[in-house]
Every structure is written in C-alpha cells, then in structure tokens.
C-alpha cells in the first residue's frame, strides 16, 4: 500500500512553552498509506508533536505540511486541515450529551454541512466497522473505555481524513479493552489509512509500524524500520529505553 509520496512533512520544527523547549529541530516524513509509531519516555514531546501537526498547538520554528497545506501559514484554512487530519485522544473526549451515533454525525453535519441522511448511513457503517452497531443510541457515559475509544475513532473517520493521529489512545484502558481498540487500529492500517501513533505498546508498534521514531528530550534520537530498530538500536539512549520497557 505504501507509496513514496509524502503526506506529512515535518522540517526542523521547534516548539517552546515559555523558556522550556519541548521540540528541538524535529524532522520527520510520513508517506501516504504508511503507519509510523512515535515512542519515547513521557514528557519527550511526542504528544506535542501530534498536536502541532493539526495546529492545536502553534510551532515556533520550522515547517509542517500536511497534504500540501502549510500548517504554520498564518493564513491557514483550519477547516481544510482538520478535514484531512483526524485525531483520537487518550481520554476519548466524546461529547457526553450526544449518543454514540450523534457523536459521529455531529461534525460532518454541523461543520461540513453534509446531508444528514447520507451522514447517518456513513456513521452506521463506521459503527459497524468498530463493532458497536448495537450501541448507536447509547450515551458515552454508559460505554466502557474501550467502546468510547472506538466511537472516538469512528467519529474521526466520519470526516474522511487522509491521516489519522492517535495520541496514546490505549494508555487509559485495561488490557482487555485495549485489545479491541488495537484491533480497530490494525484494521485501519492494513486498509491503507495513513496513521501516526504515539504509543507505549511496543509489541503493537513492532507489528503494525512501517517506521519507528524514538524521541527523548524534544529531539528525535533515532528512527528506522521496526525490525532493525528493535534488534539493533544504535544509540545508547534508545537501548536504555528499550531495555526498560521490553
């Protein structure tokens, strides 16, 4: 599925919170259809990087392009960017006052002004895809964490994005429900969706990723295809980290 065409290009990005530098000279390329995993200790800037990709956090230096859109352009069309980039958060962040189905339908109807009937059909297909058809009319508060997270994935997919960003989406889940969510992501990846995952699931990363990036202290320390990365890490910091988590 992977082509050579890049869809997300990150060049020499720097991001500061006050005096604190969270991202330092970060460069990274994601090709269409590719799945990449960003790993690293907490506080290494992984989540910030994801948030920069869809302009939830502005960058201070460098350049990010997503499907030809310059994210750091002051005249950025945010809607155009966000149609292309779907985000799934660690805490699901479903809208608690709407049912699962309504959560999926909301943005396409209210933001993209699409036809309600069409959107509903699509939303039901997506619910079936994440295996939650029977939960269509249930409110988020009545769903388990894993179920909520799968609804959140379906909600992002309803915008027909070209890239999906996953920000530690299984970190808040217990092992049983974790599996369901990872299964959904694996399916998406094999179908050819471009996925960028920030994750602590090393086994999963090794299995689904085309490329692994290791970040620490705001810089990309090392990257490579999973087989090589996990077997023969070159950097001392990477080896120390892998030793700790594996």
């Amino acid at each position, binding site marked *: 599925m992977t082509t050579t065409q890049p869809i997300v290009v990150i060049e020499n990005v720097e991001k500061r919170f006050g005096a604190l530098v969270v991202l330092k000279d970060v460069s990274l390329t994601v090709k269409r259809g590719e799945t990449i995993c960003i790993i690293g200790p907490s506080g290494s800037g992984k989540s910030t990087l994801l948030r920069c990709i*869809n302009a*939830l956090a502005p960058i201070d230096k460098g350049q990010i392009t997503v499907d030809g859109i310059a994210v750091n352009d002051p005249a950025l069309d*945010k*809607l155009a960017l*966000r*149609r292309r*980039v*779907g*985000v799934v*958060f660690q*805490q699901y*962040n*479903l*809208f*608690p*006052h709407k049912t699962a189905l309504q959560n999926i339908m*909301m*943005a396409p109807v*209210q*933001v*993209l002004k699409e036809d309600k009937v069409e959107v509903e059909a699509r939303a039901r297909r997506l619910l079936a895809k994440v295996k939650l058809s029977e939960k269509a009319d*249930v*409110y*988020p*508060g*009545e*769903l388990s964490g894993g179920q909520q997270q799968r609804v*959140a994935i379906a*909600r*992002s997919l309803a*915008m027909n994005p070209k890239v999906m960003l996953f920000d530690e989406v299984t970190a808040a889940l217990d092992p049983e429900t974790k599996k369901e969510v990872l299964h959904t992501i694996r399916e998406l990846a094999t179908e050819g969706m471009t996925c960028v995952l920030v994750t602590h699931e090393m086994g999963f990363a090794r299995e689904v990723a085309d490329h692994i990036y290791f970040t620490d202290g705001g810089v990309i320390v090392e990257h490579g295809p999973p087989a090589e990365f996990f077997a023969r890490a070159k950097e001392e910091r990477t080896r120390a980290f892998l030793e700790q988590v594996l």
Partner: protein
Amino acid sequence: MQPVAEFFRWLADAHGINLTIFYDSVDRSRFLTGLFTTIWLSIVCIFLSILIGLTGALIQGAHSPIPRAAVRSFVQFFRNTPPLVQLAFFYFAVSALLPMVTDRHGVKVPLIDNVGWAIISFSLFAGAFNVEIFRSGIEAVPKSTIEAAEALGYTRVKAYLYIIMPLAFRVCLPALGNNLVNLVKTTTLAYAIGVPELLYAAAQIWSEVLNVREMMWVLLFTYIIIVAVLVFVMHRWERALRIPGYSA
C-alpha cells in the same frame, strides 16, 4: 364560586377570619392583579437576567482584558450592594437624568416608569449572579472536550453553540434555578416604588379591611406556592436534560 364566597363570608362573621379576597370582588380583583403583576414581572426579569448573564459570560471569555474587567466590576458591584438601594438609585437618581416625555394625554411623564425601573433593576441584579453562574458552568466543560471539537473542525462560535453551551447549561441549572427563586422573592422590593405587585396589593387590602393577620398568611403562602412551582419546573427541566451515565 358562590358557595366558596358564602363560606368565607360565614368564616368572617362567625370566626373573625376575614378573607375578603374570596368574597369581595374588588379585593379579589386587586389581589389577582397583584398576583398577575408579580408573575409577569418575574417572567420578564427572568428572561432579561438570563440574557444579561449569557452576554456577560460570553464577554468574560473574550481575549481583551478591558471588557472582561468591566463585566467583572459590574458583577461584583451588583452582587455586593443592596438591591433596594440599587432600585432607588435607578428610580430616583438615574431617572432624574433622563428627559421627560409627553404621553398621549399631553401629560409630561418620565421616560421610564416605576415598573420599567423595577424590571431594569431586578434584571441587572439577578443578571450579575447569572454571569457568574454561566461562567462557572462554561469553566466546568473540560478543555479536552473543547479541543476535540476544535480537532473536528469546529470554529469557536460553533463549538460554543453545539458543545460548550449544552454542557455548561446542564451544570448551571441548579444554581440558575436557585437564583431565579431569589429573583422572584426580590420582586417584592418593587413595593417600595409603588409597583402594584402582590405585596403592594395585599398591603392595600389590609390597610382598608384591617385584616393584616389573614392577608399576611395569604401573602406568605402565595409566595411559597409561586416558589414551589418554579422549583418544580426547574427540577423537571433538570430531569429532562439529564444524560444517562453522565453526572454534571
């Protein structure tokens, strides 16, 4: 109506419990007019105070510090000064600054009459509380929920409309209900500037019929019933808006 009137007439003659509002048509219509004025005044002020509260809460979310500080001062000032003095301030002082107008009988009258000032004064008073109530409701919506909306392409206005407001409103409802109950109780102050609301009507009746004791009880129970109805409606509303599995 006839047997009821007969009963109360008998009650007055036999036991001295004189409830003229049940058998004297003049007093009855006075009382009902007062009741109607209180209810009408309450509804208008509830509506306006909610409007003021929403506007204030929206301004408090603004980026510029000057309108924020202005709203804050308004809120603090109206919360921490007596509503009766506020009413006098508007009715006597501010009113004196406004031009007089000629009514259709050719008489010069103030631009805003006592009912108008009562509405303005009570709406601002309750509105100041509503600003705080709505603001705390908006603050109770998690930042991450707003971020999720942003990530789905919602603009600021749309996120407010479809996600923040519906959630914040549910959080606000109990406090809002309580403030509205207080607003209804505050409408009695309009008595001081001669607005013919319930208390005023009752006072008129008891000063003529000299049935202070009876009218006082009628008055207390009428207010308790109005408040009870409002509380009941607010509770029903809260229940209707309750989301399964979600506690605000």
